[in-house]
Protein backbone atom coordinates (compact mmCIF):
# COMPACT_ATOMS: atom_id res chain seq x y z
CA UNK A 1 0.00 0.00 0.00
CA UNK A 2 1.46 3.32 -1.14
CA UNK A 3 0.75 6.31 1.10
CA UNK A 4 1.33 10.01 0.55
CA UNK A 5 2.22 11.63 3.88
CA UNK A 6 1.78 15.38 4.41
CA UNK A 7 3.16 17.32 7.39
CA UNK A 8 2.78 21.10 7.82
CA UNK A 9 2.31 21.49 11.57
CA UNK A 10 5.02 24.09 12.05
CA UNK A 11 8.02 25.30 10.05
CA UNK A 12 8.53 22.55 7.54
CA UNK A 13 6.43 21.76 4.54
CA UNK A 14 7.11 18.03 4.25
CA UNK A 15 5.83 15.38 1.88
CA UNK A 16 6.69 11.72 1.48
CA UNK A 17 5.68 8.63 -0.42
CA UNK A 18 6.03 5.44 1.62
CA UNK A 19 5.24 1.82 0.68
CA UNK A 20 3.70 -0.42 3.34
CA UNK A 21 4.82 1.78 6.20
CA UNK A 22 8.43 0.88 5.62
CA UNK A 23 9.94 1.67 2.19
CA UNK A 24 10.57 5.41 1.85
CA UNK A 25 10.31 6.21 -1.88
CA UNK A 26 10.57 9.97 -1.41
CA UNK A 27 10.85 12.12 1.70
CA UNK A 28 11.12 15.84 0.98
CA UNK A 29 11.33 18.75 3.40
CA UNK A 30 11.10 22.34 2.18
CA UNK A 31 14.21 23.45 4.08
CA UNK A 32 16.44 20.74 2.63
CA UNK A 33 19.56 22.17 1.06
CA UNK A 34 18.92 20.87 -2.44
CA UNK A 35 15.55 22.56 -2.51
CA UNK A 36 16.83 25.99 -1.55
CA UNK A 37 17.34 27.14 -5.07
CA UNK A 38 13.88 26.08 -6.11
CA UNK A 39 12.32 27.87 -3.16
CA UNK A 40 14.47 30.97 -3.29
CA UNK A 41 16.19 30.23 0.00
CA UNK A 42 13.40 31.65 2.16
CA UNK A 43 12.89 28.52 4.21
CA UNK A 44 12.11 27.33 6.82
CA UNK A 45 9.07 29.51 7.11
CA UNK A 46 6.45 29.68 9.76
CA UNK A 47 3.65 31.39 7.91
CA UNK A 48 0.91 29.40 6.26
CA UNK A 49 1.49 31.40 3.07
CA UNK A 50 4.89 29.74 2.73
CA UNK A 51 3.39 26.27 3.18
CA UNK A 52 0.90 27.11 0.48
CA UNK A 53 3.66 28.19 -1.90
CA UNK A 54 5.81 25.15 -1.13
CA UNK A 55 3.19 22.46 -1.26
CA UNK A 56 2.44 21.98 -4.95
CA UNK A 57 6.04 22.09 -6.22
CA UNK A 58 7.01 19.74 -3.40
CA UNK A 59 4.24 17.31 -4.37
CA UNK A 60 5.40 17.28 -7.99
CA UNK A 61 8.95 16.66 -6.85
CA UNK A 62 7.96 13.89 -4.42
CA UNK A 63 5.98 12.09 -7.09
CA UNK A 64 8.79 12.40 -9.63
CA UNK A 65 11.47 11.31 -7.14
CA UNK A 66 9.44 8.26 -6.12
CA UNK A 67 8.55 7.34 -9.70
CA UNK A 68 4.90 7.57 -8.72
CA UNK A 69 1.87 9.19 -10.26
CA UNK A 70 -1.18 10.20 -8.26
CA UNK A 71 -2.92 7.08 -9.69
CA UNK A 72 -0.45 4.87 -7.78
CA UNK A 73 -1.29 6.41 -4.40
CA UNK A 74 -3.57 4.29 -2.18
CA UNK A 75 -4.23 6.68 0.71
CA UNK A 76 -3.42 10.15 2.02
CA UNK A 77 -2.08 10.64 5.56
CA UNK A 78 -1.84 14.10 7.09
CA UNK A 79 -0.89 15.72 10.39
CA UNK A 80 -4.06 17.12 11.99
CA UNK A 81 -2.44 18.48 15.18
CA UNK A 82 -0.98 19.72 17.37
CA UNK A 83 0.65 22.73 15.75
CA UNK A 84 -0.03 26.14 14.35
CA UNK A 85 -3.60 26.30 13.10
CA UNK A 86 -2.90 28.16 9.85
CA UNK A 87 0.02 25.92 9.00
CA UNK A 88 -1.90 22.72 9.78
CA UNK A 89 -4.83 23.84 7.64
CA UNK A 90 -2.72 24.11 4.50
CA UNK A 91 -1.67 20.46 4.74
CA UNK A 92 -5.11 19.26 5.80
CA UNK A 93 -6.87 21.12 2.99
CA UNK A 94 -4.46 19.71 0.41
CA UNK A 95 -4.89 16.20 1.81
CA UNK A 96 -8.67 16.47 1.79
CA UNK A 97 -8.71 17.80 -1.78
CA UNK A 98 -6.46 14.96 -2.97
CA UNK A 99 -8.44 12.30 -1.10
CA UNK A 100 -11.74 13.62 -2.45
CA UNK A 101 -10.54 14.09 -6.04
CA UNK A 102 -8.83 10.71 -6.19
CA UNK A 103 -11.46 8.85 -4.16
CA UNK A 104 -8.86 7.71 -1.62
CA UNK A 105 -9.09 7.11 2.12
CA UNK A 106 -7.87 9.99 4.30
CA UNK A 107 -6.15 9.34 7.58
CA UNK A 108 -5.39 12.04 10.14
CA UNK A 109 -2.26 11.53 12.24
CA UNK A 110 -1.14 13.09 15.52
CA UNK A 111 2.19 14.83 14.97
CA UNK A 112 3.81 13.16 17.99
CA UNK A 113 2.55 9.72 17.02
CA UNK A 114 4.37 10.43 13.76
CA UNK A 115 7.61 10.99 15.70
CA UNK A 116 7.13 7.62 17.42
CA UNK A 117 6.59 5.93 14.04
CA UNK A 118 9.82 7.42 12.67
CA UNK A 119 11.32 4.50 14.62
CA UNK A 120 9.09 2.00 12.84
CA UNK A 121 10.28 3.35 9.50
CA UNK A 122 13.86 2.80 10.55
CA UNK A 123 13.59 -0.41 12.59
CA UNK A 124 10.30 -2.12 11.68
CA UNK A 125 7.24 -2.59 13.88
CA UNK A 126 7.82 -1.95 17.62
CA UNK A 127 5.66 -3.93 20.01
CA UNK A 128 4.17 -2.05 22.96
CA UNK A 129 4.37 -1.65 25.84
CA UNK A 130 7.03 1.03 25.64
CA UNK A 131 7.88 4.47 26.95
CA UNK A 132 8.45 7.21 24.36
CA UNK A 133 10.47 10.35 25.05
CA UNK A 134 9.48 12.98 22.48
CA UNK A 135 11.67 16.03 22.39
CA UNK A 136 11.82 18.82 19.83
CA UNK A 137 11.62 22.58 19.39
CA UNK A 138 7.98 22.58 20.43
CA UNK A 139 7.60 19.50 22.63
CA UNK A 140 9.17 17.73 25.57
CA UNK A 141 7.00 14.80 26.61
CA UNK A 142 7.21 11.40 28.26
CA UNK A 143 4.55 8.98 27.07
CA UNK A 144 3.60 5.47 28.12
CA UNK A 145 2.18 3.29 25.32
CA UNK A 146 0.60 0.24 27.01
CA UNK A 147 -0.79 -1.14 23.72
CA UNK A 148 -0.88 -0.11 20.04
CA UNK A 149 -2.34 3.37 19.45
CA UNK A 150 -2.93 3.99 23.15
CA UNK A 151 -0.92 6.68 24.88
CA UNK A 152 -0.83 8.00 28.39
CA UNK A 153 1.13 11.19 29.00
CA UNK A 154 3.41 10.77 32.01
CA UNK A 155 4.90 14.24 31.97
CA UNK A 156 5.82 17.21 29.85
CA UNK A 157 7.52 20.56 29.96
CA UNK A 158 6.00 23.22 32.18
CA UNK A 159 7.63 26.08 30.26
CA UNK A 160 10.18 25.79 27.44
CA UNK A 161 10.59 22.79 25.15
CA UNK A 162 14.13 21.41 25.11
CA UNK A 163 14.87 22.35 21.51
CA UNK A 164 13.80 25.88 22.19
CA UNK A 165 16.01 26.14 25.29
CA UNK A 166 18.96 24.86 23.23
CA UNK A 167 18.24 27.40 20.49
CA UNK A 168 17.85 30.30 22.89
CA UNK A 169 20.97 29.54 24.90
CA UNK A 170 22.83 29.09 21.60
CA UNK A 171 21.68 32.52 20.53
CA UNK A 172 22.72 34.01 23.88
CA UNK A 173 26.18 32.46 23.43
CA UNK A 174 26.41 34.09 20.01
CA UNK A 175 25.91 30.92 17.97
CA UNK A 176 23.00 32.26 15.88
CA UNK A 177 19.38 31.12 15.85
CA UNK A 178 18.36 28.36 15.65
CA UNK A 179 21.69 27.23 17.02
CA UNK A 180 20.91 23.97 18.83
CA UNK A 181 23.16 21.90 16.54
CA UNK A 182 25.96 24.50 16.88
CA UNK A 183 25.68 24.30 20.66
CA UNK A 184 25.99 20.52 20.43
CA UNK A 185 29.21 20.89 18.40
CA UNK A 186 30.67 23.53 20.76
CA UNK A 187 29.81 21.38 23.78
CA UNK A 188 31.93 18.53 22.42
CA UNK A 189 34.99 20.69 23.08
CA UNK A 190 33.94 21.71 26.57
CA UNK A 191 33.95 20.25 30.07
CA UNK A 192 30.42 19.17 31.11
CA UNK A 193 31.44 19.38 34.79
CA UNK A 194 32.97 22.86 34.57
CA UNK A 195 29.86 24.60 35.89
CA UNK A 196 27.28 22.89 38.05
CA UNK A 197 24.02 24.27 36.64
CA UNK A 198 20.84 23.41 38.55
CA UNK A 199 19.16 20.18 37.50
CA UNK A 200 15.57 21.11 36.82
CA UNK A 201 13.91 18.55 39.02
CA UNK A 202 10.32 19.69 39.19
CA UNK A 203 7.92 18.73 41.92
CA UNK A 204 5.84 16.47 39.73
CA UNK A 205 7.68 13.31 38.84
CA UNK A 206 7.93 13.32 35.06
CA UNK A 207 7.48 16.99 34.21
CA UNK A 208 10.31 19.13 32.89
CA UNK A 209 11.19 22.79 33.41
CA UNK A 210 13.95 24.58 31.54
CA UNK A 211 13.19 28.27 31.91
CA UNK A 212 15.12 28.45 35.20
CA UNK A 213 18.15 26.66 33.74
CA UNK A 214 18.20 29.04 30.79
CA UNK A 215 18.21 31.95 33.22
CA UNK A 216 20.99 30.29 35.27
CA UNK A 217 23.17 30.23 32.14
CA UNK A 218 22.52 33.92 31.53
CA UNK A 219 23.26 34.70 35.19
CA UNK A 220 26.49 32.75 35.14
CA UNK A 221 27.82 34.40 32.00
CA UNK A 222 26.67 37.87 33.08
CA UNK A 223 28.19 37.47 36.55
CA UNK A 224 31.52 36.26 35.11
CA UNK A 225 31.65 39.20 32.71
CA UNK A 226 30.76 41.51 35.61
CA UNK A 227 33.92 40.25 37.35
CA UNK A 228 35.92 41.04 34.24
CA UNK A 229 36.27 37.40 33.18
CA UNK A 230 35.18 35.97 29.83
CA UNK A 231 33.78 32.49 30.46
CA UNK A 232 34.89 29.61 28.24
CA UNK A 233 31.80 29.26 26.07
CA UNK A 234 32.51 25.61 25.25
CA UNK A 235 32.39 24.84 28.99
CA UNK A 236 29.14 26.81 29.38
CA UNK A 237 27.64 24.92 26.41
CA UNK A 238 28.79 21.51 27.66
CA UNK A 239 27.65 22.16 31.24
CA UNK A 240 24.26 23.47 30.12
CA UNK A 241 23.75 20.54 27.77
CA UNK A 242 24.72 18.09 30.51
CA UNK A 243 22.17 19.61 32.91
CA UNK A 244 19.42 19.26 30.29
CA UNK A 245 20.31 15.78 29.08
CA UNK A 246 20.98 14.28 32.52
CA UNK A 247 17.47 15.12 33.72
CA UNK A 248 15.93 13.86 30.47
CA UNK A 249 17.73 10.53 30.67
CA UNK A 250 17.05 10.11 34.41
CA UNK A 251 13.33 10.73 33.96
CA UNK A 252 13.01 8.53 30.87
CA UNK A 253 14.73 5.61 32.59
CA UNK A 254 12.62 6.17 35.71
CA UNK A 255 9.47 6.17 33.58
CA UNK A 256 10.46 2.86 31.98
CA UNK A 257 11.20 1.36 35.40
CA UNK A 258 8.01 2.66 37.02
CA UNK A 259 5.77 1.45 34.18
CA UNK A 260 7.63 -1.85 33.96
CA UNK A 261 8.44 -1.63 30.25
CA UNK A 262 11.58 -2.99 28.60
CA UNK A 263 11.56 -0.69 25.57
CA UNK A 264 12.27 3.03 25.17
CA UNK A 265 11.53 4.91 21.96
CA UNK A 266 12.94 8.36 21.19
CA UNK A 267 11.51 10.86 18.74
CA UNK A 268 11.77 14.51 17.69
CA UNK A 269 14.40 16.93 16.43
CA UNK A 270 16.41 17.13 19.67
CA UNK A 271 17.11 13.37 19.44
CA UNK A 272 19.75 14.44 16.91
CA UNK A 273 21.71 15.81 19.93
CA UNK A 274 24.82 13.65 20.28
CA UNK A 275 25.03 13.85 24.08
CA UNK A 276 21.39 12.80 24.52
CA UNK A 277 21.86 9.84 22.17
CA UNK A 278 25.09 8.75 23.88
CA UNK A 279 23.92 9.04 27.50
CA UNK A 280 20.51 7.49 26.79
CA UNK A 281 22.19 4.60 25.00
CA UNK A 282 24.66 3.94 27.85
CA UNK A 283 22.04 4.14 30.57
CA UNK A 284 19.50 2.01 28.69
CA UNK A 285 22.10 -0.66 28.13
CA UNK A 286 23.02 -0.65 31.84
CA UNK A 287 19.34 -1.05 32.70
CA UNK A 288 18.85 -3.85 30.17
CA UNK A 289 16.35 -1.80 28.18
CA UNK A 290 15.97 -1.87 24.41
CA UNK A 291 16.37 1.59 22.95
CA UNK A 292 15.01 2.66 19.56
CA UNK A 293 16.33 5.89 18.06
CA UNK A 294 15.48 7.20 14.61
CA UNK A 295 18.35 8.15 12.30
CA UNK A 296 18.95 11.94 12.41
CA UNK A 297 17.17 12.58 9.08
CA UNK A 298 13.95 11.09 10.51
CA UNK A 299 14.22 13.01 13.81
CA UNK A 300 13.17 16.34 12.31
CA UNK A 301 9.60 16.88 11.13
CA UNK A 302 9.00 14.84 7.96
CA UNK A 303 6.19 13.38 5.88
CA UNK A 304 7.49 9.79 5.93
CA UNK A 305 6.74 9.33 9.64
CA UNK A 306 3.19 10.58 9.01
CA UNK A 307 2.75 8.18 6.09
CA UNK A 308 4.08 5.34 8.26
CA UNK A 309 1.77 6.06 11.21
CA UNK A 310 -1.07 6.48 8.70
CA UNK A 311 -0.33 3.06 7.21
CA UNK A 312 -0.62 1.33 10.58
CA UNK A 313 -3.81 3.22 11.46
CA UNK A 314 -5.37 2.39 8.07
CA UNK A 315 -4.36 -1.24 8.47
CA UNK A 316 -6.50 -1.53 11.56
CA UNK A 317 -9.44 0.15 9.84
CA UNK A 318 -9.12 3.78 10.92
CA UNK A 319 -10.48 6.39 8.51
CA UNK A 320 -10.77 10.15 8.91
CA UNK A 321 -13.84 12.00 7.63
CA UNK A 322 -13.35 14.64 4.95
CA UNK A 323 -14.75 17.32 7.25
CA UNK A 324 -11.80 16.99 9.65
CA UNK A 325 -10.32 20.29 10.83
CA UNK A 326 -7.02 21.39 12.35
CA UNK A 327 -6.59 20.71 16.07
CA UNK A 328 -3.85 23.08 17.30
CA UNK A 329 -3.97 21.60 20.82
CA UNK A 330 -4.74 17.99 19.92
CA UNK A 331 -3.95 15.75 22.91
CA UNK A 332 -2.08 12.50 22.38
CA UNK A 333 -4.08 9.58 23.66
Amino acid at each position, binding site marked *: MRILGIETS*CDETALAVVDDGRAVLANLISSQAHLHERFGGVVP*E*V*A*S*RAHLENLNPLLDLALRESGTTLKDIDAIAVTVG*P*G*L*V*GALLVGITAAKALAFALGLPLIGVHHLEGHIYANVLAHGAIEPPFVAFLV*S*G*GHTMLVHAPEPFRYRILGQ*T*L*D*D*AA*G*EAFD*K*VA*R*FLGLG*FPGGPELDRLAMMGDPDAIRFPRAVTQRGYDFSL*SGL*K*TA*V*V*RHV*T*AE*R*GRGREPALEDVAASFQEAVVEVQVDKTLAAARDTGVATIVLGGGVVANTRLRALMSTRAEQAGIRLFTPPPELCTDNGAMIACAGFYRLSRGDRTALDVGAS*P*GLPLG
Partner: protein
Amino acid sequence: MQTLHVRSSSAAHTAALGRALGGLLEEGDLVSLSGDLGAGKTTFVQGAAAALSVSEPVLSPTFTLVRTYAGRVPVHHVDVYRLRAIQDVLDLGWDELLEGGGVVIVEWGDAIDAILPASRLEVRLTIPDGEADAREVVVQGLGDRWERAWPTVTGAVRAAAG
Protein backbone atom coordinates in the same frame (compact mmCIF):
# COMPACT_ATOMS: atom_id res chain seq x y z
CA MET B 1 1.72 58.03 27.67
CA GLN B 2 2.28 57.08 31.28
CA THR B 3 5.49 55.52 32.54
CA LEU B 4 6.35 53.66 35.72
CA HIS B 5 9.80 52.44 36.77
CA VAL B 6 10.04 49.55 39.21
CA ARG B 7 12.93 47.46 40.39
CA SER B 8 12.20 43.76 40.77
CA SER B 9 14.39 42.12 43.38
CA SER B 10 13.76 38.49 42.37
CA ALA B 11 11.92 36.10 40.08
CA ALA B 12 9.17 35.88 42.73
CA HIS B 13 8.85 39.65 42.64
CA THR B 14 8.65 39.63 38.80
CA ALA B 15 5.88 37.01 39.02
CA ALA B 16 4.06 39.20 41.56
CA LEU B 17 4.26 42.13 39.14
CA GLY B 18 2.81 39.85 36.46
CA ARG B 19 -0.02 38.90 38.79
CA ALA B 20 -0.67 42.55 39.71
CA LEU B 21 -0.93 43.69 36.09
CA GLY B 22 -2.67 40.50 34.94
CA GLY B 23 -5.38 41.19 37.49
CA LEU B 24 -6.19 44.48 35.74
CA LEU B 25 -6.49 43.07 32.23
CA GLU B 26 -9.83 42.98 30.47
CA GLU B 27 -11.13 41.66 27.20
CA GLY B 28 -9.55 43.59 24.31
CA ASP B 29 -6.36 44.52 26.19
CA LEU B 30 -2.92 43.94 24.72
CA VAL B 31 0.34 43.71 26.62
CA SER B 32 3.58 44.04 24.70
CA LEU B 33 6.45 42.42 26.56
CA SER B 34 10.12 42.85 25.80
CA GLY B 35 13.37 41.86 27.43
CA ASP B 36 16.46 39.79 26.79
CA LEU B 37 16.79 36.09 27.38
CA GLY B 38 16.60 35.39 31.10
CA ALA B 39 15.09 38.78 31.90
CA GLY B 40 11.94 37.16 33.25
CA LYS B 41 9.37 37.27 30.44
CA THR B 42 8.19 33.71 31.11
CA THR B 43 7.98 34.41 34.84
CA PHE B 44 6.01 37.59 34.23
CA VAL B 45 3.54 35.88 31.88
CA GLN B 46 3.07 32.99 34.29
CA GLY B 47 2.12 35.52 36.96
CA ALA B 48 -0.24 37.40 34.64
CA ALA B 49 -1.89 34.15 33.48
CA ALA B 50 -2.45 33.06 37.08
CA ALA B 51 -4.22 36.35 37.76
CA LEU B 52 -6.35 35.74 34.66
CA SER B 53 -7.42 32.38 36.18
CA VAL B 54 -5.48 30.24 33.70
CA SER B 55 -5.03 26.92 35.47
CA GLU B 56 -2.85 25.00 32.98
CA PRO B 57 0.93 25.47 32.81
CA VAL B 58 1.84 28.40 30.56
CA LEU B 59 4.26 26.93 28.03
CA SER B 60 6.60 28.94 25.88
CA PRO B 61 4.91 29.99 22.63
CA THR B 62 8.21 30.47 20.79
CA PHE B 63 7.85 27.42 18.60
CA THR B 64 4.12 27.37 18.03
CA LEU B 65 3.96 31.20 17.89
CA VAL B 66 0.55 31.37 19.57
CA ARG B 67 -0.92 29.51 22.52
CA THR B 68 -4.42 30.20 23.73
CA TYR B 69 -5.59 29.53 27.27
CA ALA B 70 -9.04 29.54 28.78
CA GLY B 71 -8.87 31.98 31.68
CA ARG B 72 -11.62 34.25 32.97
CA VAL B 73 -11.25 35.62 29.42
CA PRO B 74 -9.37 33.87 26.58
CA VAL B 75 -5.64 34.56 26.91
CA HIS B 76 -3.61 34.56 23.68
CA HIS B 77 0.10 34.25 24.36
CA VAL B 78 2.04 35.22 21.23
CA ASP B 79 5.77 35.14 20.57
CA VAL B 80 7.12 36.89 17.49
CA TYR B 81 10.76 35.95 18.22
CA ARG B 82 11.05 33.68 15.21
CA LEU B 83 9.11 35.77 12.75
CA ARG B 84 11.10 37.76 10.25
CA ALA B 85 8.66 40.17 8.74
CA ILE B 86 5.55 42.06 9.76
CA GLN B 87 3.75 40.16 6.99
CA ASP B 88 4.50 36.89 8.82
CA VAL B 89 2.78 38.25 11.92
CA LEU B 90 -0.23 39.34 9.88
CA ASP B 91 -0.33 35.88 8.28
CA LEU B 92 -0.68 34.39 11.75
CA GLY B 93 -4.19 35.74 11.83
CA TRP B 94 -3.11 38.81 13.80
CA ASP B 95 -6.23 40.89 13.10
CA GLU B 96 -8.47 38.02 14.13
CA LEU B 97 -6.50 37.68 17.37
CA LEU B 98 -6.87 41.38 18.14
CA GLU B 99 -10.54 41.50 17.31
CA GLY B 100 -11.52 38.10 18.62
CA GLY B 101 -11.95 39.17 22.23
CA GLY B 102 -9.74 38.13 25.08
CA VAL B 103 -6.36 39.34 26.23
CA VAL B 104 -3.29 39.29 23.99
CA ILE B 105 0.19 39.09 25.52
CA VAL B 106 2.96 39.47 22.93
CA GLU B 107 6.55 38.58 23.69
CA TRP B 108 9.17 40.61 21.80
CA GLY B 109 6.33 42.99 20.93
CA ASP B 110 8.85 45.83 20.47
CA ALA B 111 9.82 44.19 17.17
CA ILE B 112 6.35 44.72 15.72
CA ASP B 113 5.64 48.23 17.01
CA ALA B 114 4.14 49.23 13.68
CA ILE B 115 1.17 46.89 13.95
CA LEU B 116 0.50 47.10 17.68
CA PRO B 117 -2.77 48.79 18.61
CA ALA B 118 -2.50 52.39 19.79
CA SER B 119 -3.96 51.39 23.14
CA ARG B 120 -1.67 48.98 24.94
CA LEU B 121 0.39 48.25 28.01
CA GLU B 122 4.13 47.88 27.44
CA VAL B 123 6.37 46.05 29.88
CA ARG B 124 10.11 46.10 29.40
CA LEU B 125 12.38 43.93 31.55
CA THR B 126 16.12 44.52 31.61
CA ILE B 127 18.98 42.92 33.51
CA PRO B 128 21.12 45.62 35.14
CA ASP B 129 24.84 45.23 34.35
CA GLY B 130 26.59 42.74 36.55
CA GLU B 131 23.51 41.83 38.57
CA ALA B 132 22.08 38.34 38.79
CA ASP B 133 18.68 38.66 40.43
CA ALA B 134 17.49 42.23 40.09
CA ARG B 135 15.55 43.44 37.07
CA GLU B 136 14.64 46.92 35.92
CA VAL B 137 10.99 46.95 34.95
CA VAL B 138 9.46 49.76 32.90
CA VAL B 139 5.68 49.76 32.55
CA GLN B 140 4.12 52.11 30.01
CA GLY B 141 0.45 52.75 29.36
CA LEU B 142 -0.57 54.02 25.93
CA GLY B 143 -3.99 55.32 24.92
CA ASP B 144 -7.07 56.47 26.83
CA ARG B 145 -7.79 53.08 28.36
CA TRP B 146 -4.50 53.10 30.25
CA GLU B 147 -4.52 56.84 30.86
CA ARG B 148 -7.75 56.32 32.80
CA ALA B 149 -6.56 53.18 34.53
CA TRP B 150 -3.14 54.56 35.47
CA PRO B 151 -3.85 55.26 39.15
CA THR B 152 -5.00 51.63 39.47
CA VAL B 153 -1.91 50.39 37.61
CA THR B 154 0.37 52.41 39.88
CA GLY B 155 -1.42 51.12 42.96
CA ALA B 156 -1.25 47.50 41.87
CA VAL B 157 2.44 47.71 40.98
CA ARG B 158 3.26 49.38 44.32
CA ALA B 159 1.30 46.74 46.22
CA ALA B 160 3.21 43.99 44.41
CA ALA B 161 6.48 45.63 45.39
CA GLY B 162 5.43 45.70 49.02
